[in-house]
């Protein structure tokens, strides 16, 4: 799951990037409002972590701009402003959640997972399809009750495909959802991860649509 962090404080931005990466997110970090708006226009992020006191364009302006352009991506505001008035304003401007500094890294990751889950119409925290059970919080995958060991990248790929079950996703779309900026993408990385997933789980879990992309089919209604 790729998220965008907008934070102008160097130390905090660095920590957010490292901490969210540890929690299994792909993280891009920008430190001002304009860069945030540009990044949001270009990349398909699963969520946005937004500081309000930003140089250039304020956090609320970034948020307003995002919502006016019709984007529904979940936004979590991360700020030092803790009055009820501030919170109301943030939520009314279109934020989905509000976390006050200082915060717990684990809580931030959990809230982001919940936001992403809800935004993909998936209310249960654990994804379960075709006997594959994926627990984002525990970072664990079970197949038919047996634990399966996946690399971080394989896990993320499986999560994206399960969240978007029934939709064909192109290789580029998958790469965009998985890799943060500056991360080395091997030319056939997605193919390799799909291959590994098929081997570790079962072959017909992921369907290749030749020339288009990959698809994790929804189970047929019984």
């Amino acid at each position, binding site marked *: 799951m790729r998220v965008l962090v907008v934070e102008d*404080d*160097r*130390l*905090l931005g*660095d*920590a*957010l990037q*490292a*901490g969210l990466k*540890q929690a299994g997110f792909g993280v891009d970090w920008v430190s*001002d409002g304009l860069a945030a708006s540009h990044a949001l226009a270009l990349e398909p992020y699963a969520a946005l972590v937004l500081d309000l006191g930003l*140089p*250039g364009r304020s956090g609320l302006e970034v948020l307003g701009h995002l919502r006016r352009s019709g984007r529904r991506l979940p936004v979590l505001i991360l700020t*030092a*402003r*803790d009055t009820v008035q501030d919170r109301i304003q943030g939520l009314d401007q279109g934020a989905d959640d509000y976390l*006050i*500094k*200082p*915060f*717990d*890294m*684990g809580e931030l990751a959990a809230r982001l997972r919940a936001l992403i889950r809800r935004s993909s119409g998936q209310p249960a925290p654990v994804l379960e399809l075709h006997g594959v059970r994926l627990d984002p919080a525990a970072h664990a995958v079970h197949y038919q009750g047996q634990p399966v060991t996946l690399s971080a990248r394989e896990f993320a790929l499986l999560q994206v495909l399960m969240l978007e079950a029934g939709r064909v996703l192109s290789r580029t779309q998958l790469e965009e959802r998985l890799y943060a900026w500056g991360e080395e993408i091997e030319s056939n990385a997605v193919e390799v991860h799909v291959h590994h997933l098929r081997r570790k789980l079962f072959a017909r879990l992921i369907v290749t649509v030749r020339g288009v992309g990959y698809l994790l089919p929804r189970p047929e209604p019984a």
Partner: protein
Amino acid sequence: MRSLRARLLALVLGLVAVVWAGAALLTWRDARYELDALLDAHLAQAATLLVAQFSHELDELELEYEHFPGNRYEQRVAFQVWGREGRRLLFRSANAPRAPLGDARGGFRSVRVDGADWRVYSTRATSEDGDEDERLLIHVAEPLSVRTNLAAGISLHLLYPLGLTLPLLGLLLWWAVSVSLRPLTALAQAVQQRRPDNLSALPEQQLAELAPLTQRLNQLFARIARLIDNERRFTADAAHELRTPIAAIQAQLQVAQGVSGPIARKHALQQALDGCRRATHLIGQLLTLARLESQAGVALERCELGELIAGVVAELAPEALRRGVELALVVDKPVLLAGWPALLQVLVRNLLENALRHAQGASLVEVRIGTEPGQGSRLSVCDDGQGVIAAEREKLGRRFYRPADTLADGSGLGLSIVRRIAELHQAQLHFESGSTGRGLCVVVRFGD
């Protein structure tokens, strides 16, 4: 506590009494003069009547004259009739003394006989035969006290109404003063009943005497409200500003906890330490700013600006060297001013640190002191870095403001501190672009 109403009342009643008493005194003097004239005329007339009577029927006997009191003044009139060239008392009224009231000279005089003061009119009557021996000497007299009592009576009569009217006047005045003072009482009550934290304006006053007072009070309330608001905002801002470094420290420590490799852990821990340094710096700056607010009571000292600055420049030279920036002090003209040396050093240090840490691409930072014709002394800190665009320059010096694209981490308080110190020295802070069009110049202009 003294009351305005009591004072007004006492003053007005006192003045009324004094003026009235003055009038009574004048009346007494005037009455005394008129009485003298009138009563003298009476004496003369009485004498004439006596002469007319006694020049015809002279009796050898010394007669006692029976007197029937008429009015209360009448019995005071006394007379003596002397015959034989004034050697024999022929006749006298009951209230007249036996001793002669006068001598052979005629006319009015005031005399003292047997311890009493008399006003006497003397006249002579000659018998028809012209015998010198038969000449009569007549004194008509009246005690002087009669006149004094009369005049005093008139004056006292004038004073009686004062005694009656003064209390009445006092009551009326009390009412009038109360009515007049009602707006003042209302104002005092309004101020008294205010809660200490109520800083809203008092209602506009229609009275010319009270309007300046309420205007001033309202100005004062507004100023205090502004100050309190500033303080409140500052405290809130300060708390918020501290949250970010603390959040960074916490997040970095949690990253360090969860990370697997030793290099990544070391990096995270190092970052957490940086966060602690940042928080410490911020707290230090906040305390400096708080202390500045209580500076006003400390005595001013004579400061040689060049010497003060040389010390700061020497302190910061190693850091400048490390950053590859040349630091220079140029004294165009020595500047002596009354100020707080420690604060002036803080001012210069903040400006120099700003220039060293935030001026991107600077290779020279120059402190210059001197005088400007007609503008007093001047201190400037200039760098030759990228400078700050005019729109951003206006925002410099706002608390916690950090321009966009700042690479370095600062508290955002340095220029607030500089500005406050400048204010304490009645100096003004200006931002200009460098002399060559590059960089930023911070100029402090001292008055006098």
